């Protein structure tokens, strides 16, 4: 082994990972005057160069297929236009899957992580989401209540900026909202279909600024949030949290730093973070007073499990053995319909914010005799979007050749309405990750092995999604586009919705949980986890807003502990 470079300086706090959790930790701690060193496994981000906002397809000679026609051969991992984010398959960084199981692990390797491209759907978990066992006997209660979390949701919303309206729906708690965006035409049809079917369709709750706040300009409604936003009107941790934190002089960023291990001292505290400097392929160690791990749920679990010592033979902070267990993702299923009422609609600019302007919160919370627990929300897609490669192949195939192609394309443009269900998975014993002792990645770090199983709960929920979407499409006078349907085959693969959670869970009992209610390790008080790994469940509300709220809470707790001299 090469000589390890150890830093002589003891840093205050080292944060591993720069996404929603790491970014929030950086912002909160530097605001409180604490010196932070941020390790990011990917490169730095330069929004002005890296974001492809407002570029027309013809301004790029491959028009978006990828420079070597990747999209035509199914080799494009992610759309060309998207902000730099990450991949399912990272060269040199494999993972294992248990025989007969399916799982896809998305890794983001860029400053800002997944927040550079995410959908920005920002939903509070509800009271029963924090106490699911008390609610229906399934899953695990959090050591935190909604009322305890609520002030942190306030802070998160007021800082990142979230659209919405006050609706008083239990499954979708109201927050500190910016004004909503008016619905598009197809969304008005969905609202009317919902009214007919007694399904609420309400303004969406999205992290885009309908009013300028915190130095960030208001949205200019180009709908390209996923490409990255030069004005940061769509929230990213990179632009809204990390770059401003640099101005405090309290933040040092180390990019290309792949965390390998947390080094524990004789007192059982983390004394240093070992990482591989990718540029030189050397191991470096950075000494610290405390560490906050926010590398994404599975990567954080991997780091803890790979940090073995005589004191912690099963991995640091893993005396309970729960690290890696209870891995969850969101239940996903989508169905599209073709709606004749929208044919040849008078043209107008309907870009709006990137994504839906209205959505459906879970509406059958009080319904008895359902054949699955909990529920899902529905995301709406459609509209007169920017034409892309592939947009009109279907219309053309139906038209044959000649002038008929243009006629068909004009008629069909904007007639597709899509419904995407995003539902809750109940944590189970058969879905988890562990270290594969037979394999390492290109940095010499042992890789993860995934185990995955949906239960009947989730599969029955997908049946309900399909029936509901079919009813919605038919209520609009539309035609469902995909048949036949089989719920067990149509459910998303584990990991595919990119909402992994639960692998370093929190709890009051150190025998059954790794972290306390502040996301601080029971066994190692100067170690905190600040992504979705601490979550005790994965409700049908996308994880990011709760990551921000919970990380904010954890960071203030850490600052407090440091002030008191406990850490």
């Amino acid at each position: 082994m090469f000589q390890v470079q150890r830093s002589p300086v003891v840093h205050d706090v080292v944060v591993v990972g720069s996404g929603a959790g790491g970014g929030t930790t950086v912002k909160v701690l530097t605001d409180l005057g604490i010196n932070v060193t941020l390790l990011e496994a990917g490169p730095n981000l330069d929004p002005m160069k890296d974001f492809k906002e407002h570029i027309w397809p013809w301004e790029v000679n491959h028009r978006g297929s990828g420079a070597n026609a990747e999209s035509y051969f199914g080799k494009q991992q992610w759309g060309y236009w998207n902000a730099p984010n990450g991949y399912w398959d990272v060269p040199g960084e494999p993972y294992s899957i248990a025989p007969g199981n399916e799982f896809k692990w998305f890794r983001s390797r860029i400053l800002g992580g997944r927040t550079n491209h995410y959908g920005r759907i920002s939903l509070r978990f509800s009271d029963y989401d924090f106490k699911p066992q008390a609610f229906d006997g399934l899953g695990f209660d959090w050591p935190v209540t909604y009322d305890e979390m609520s002030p942190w949701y306030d802070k998160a919303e007021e800082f990142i900026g979230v659209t919405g309206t006050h609706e008083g729906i239990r499954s979708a708690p109201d927050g500190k909202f910016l004004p909503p965006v008016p619905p598009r035409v197809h969304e008005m049809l969905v609202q009317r279909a919902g009214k007919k079917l007694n399904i609420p369709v309400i303004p969406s709750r999205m992290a885009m600024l309908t009013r300028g706040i915190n130095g960030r300009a208001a949205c200019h409604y180009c709908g390209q949030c996923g490409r990255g936003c030069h004005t940061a009107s769509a929230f990213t941790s990179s632009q809204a949290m990390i770059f401003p934190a640099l101005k405090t002089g309290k933040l040092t960023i180390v990019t290309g730093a792949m965390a390998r291990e947390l080094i524990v001292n004789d007192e059982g505290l983390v004394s240093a973070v070992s990482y591989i400097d990718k540029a030189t392929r050397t191991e470096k160690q950075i000494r610290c007073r405390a560490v906050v791990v926010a590398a994404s749920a599975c990567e954080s679990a991997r780091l803890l499990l790979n940090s073995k010592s005589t004191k912690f033979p099963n991995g640091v902070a893993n005396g309970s053995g729960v690290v890696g267990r209870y891995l969850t993702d969101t239940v996903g299923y989508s169905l599209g319909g073709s709606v004749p009422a929208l044919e040849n609609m008078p043209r107008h600019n309907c870009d709006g914010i990137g994504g839906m302007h209205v959505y459906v919160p879970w509406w059958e919370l009080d319904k008895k005799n359902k054949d699955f627990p909990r529920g899902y929300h529905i995301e709406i897609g459609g509209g007169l979007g920017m034409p892309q490669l592939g947009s009109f192949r279907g219309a053309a195939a139906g038209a044959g050749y000649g002038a008929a192609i243009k006629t068909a394309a004009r008629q069909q443009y904007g007639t597709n309405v899509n419904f995407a269900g995003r539902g809750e998975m109940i944590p189970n014993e058969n879905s988890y990750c562990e270290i594969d002792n037979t394999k390492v990645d290109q940095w010499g770090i042992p890789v993860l092995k995934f185990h995955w199983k949906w239960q009947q709960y989730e599969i029955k929920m997908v049946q309900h999604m399909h029936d509901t979407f079919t009813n919605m499409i038919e209520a609009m006078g539309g035609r469902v586009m995909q048949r036949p349907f089989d719920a067990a085959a149509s459910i998303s693969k584990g990991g595919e919705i990119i909402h992994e959670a639960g692998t370093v869970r929190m709890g009051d009992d150190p025998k059954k949980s790794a972290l306390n209610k502040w996301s601080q390790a029971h066994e190692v008080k100067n170690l905190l986890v600040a992504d979705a790994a601490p979550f005790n469940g994965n409700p049908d509300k996308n994880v990011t807003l709760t990551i921000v709220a919970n990380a904010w809470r954890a960071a203030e707790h850490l600052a407090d502990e440091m002030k008191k001299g406990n850490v």
Partner: protein
Amino acid sequence: MSDSSITNNPVTPDVSRRDLFRIVGTGLLSAEFLTAQDAKDAHAAMAMPATGPKSLKGGPTFVPKHLNQHHFKTLQHLGDLIMPADATSPAASEAGAAEFIDFLCSRNDDLAAIFDGGLEWLDEYTKHKYGTDFLTSKPAEQTAVLDLAYGTRGGSPEVAGGSQFFTWARNMVVDAYYTSPVGVKDIGYMGNTAMSTFHVPQEAVDYVLKRSPFGA
């Protein structure tokens, strides 16, 4: 993460708008985001109507990157038969369809094999049937080939050898068309600009609701 594939080919982007956006960007010391005032200027620049080039067709001096001249001309002509001009908009050649396909053939061997082989097959087929290559065959003969290739019930067994090529050709011609200025104009996409508030014209709402089961 710089992207070397950003074009420097015959395309002339909307210079004023994009340049202004960049100029606003240079005021930044490091990667960050635009301040409110800078953003306002940028939005004003963005809100100027987008005017892409009228045509993406290569000029008389255009040299294909991969296809030979004959194949290129054949592909260009085939593209114009798949998507001809009509009263509203010009044919596929004005969308640079052949140039787009040729470029990607120069970057991807699998694609190159599909088009090299397919265009060769097309000539062989018309030579065998009509005594000339596709490009010099009569319009009625070309139409007869396309009727077999893109018939309403799928391709005819008679042209099965070219079926993969015909599918790829139509997909990529259509793709090229709607990702070009003429295609975007034809379909009526009006976005990729900046607006200070989002609103939907009542005319569009009325049109759709009247046609929907919900009524106006």
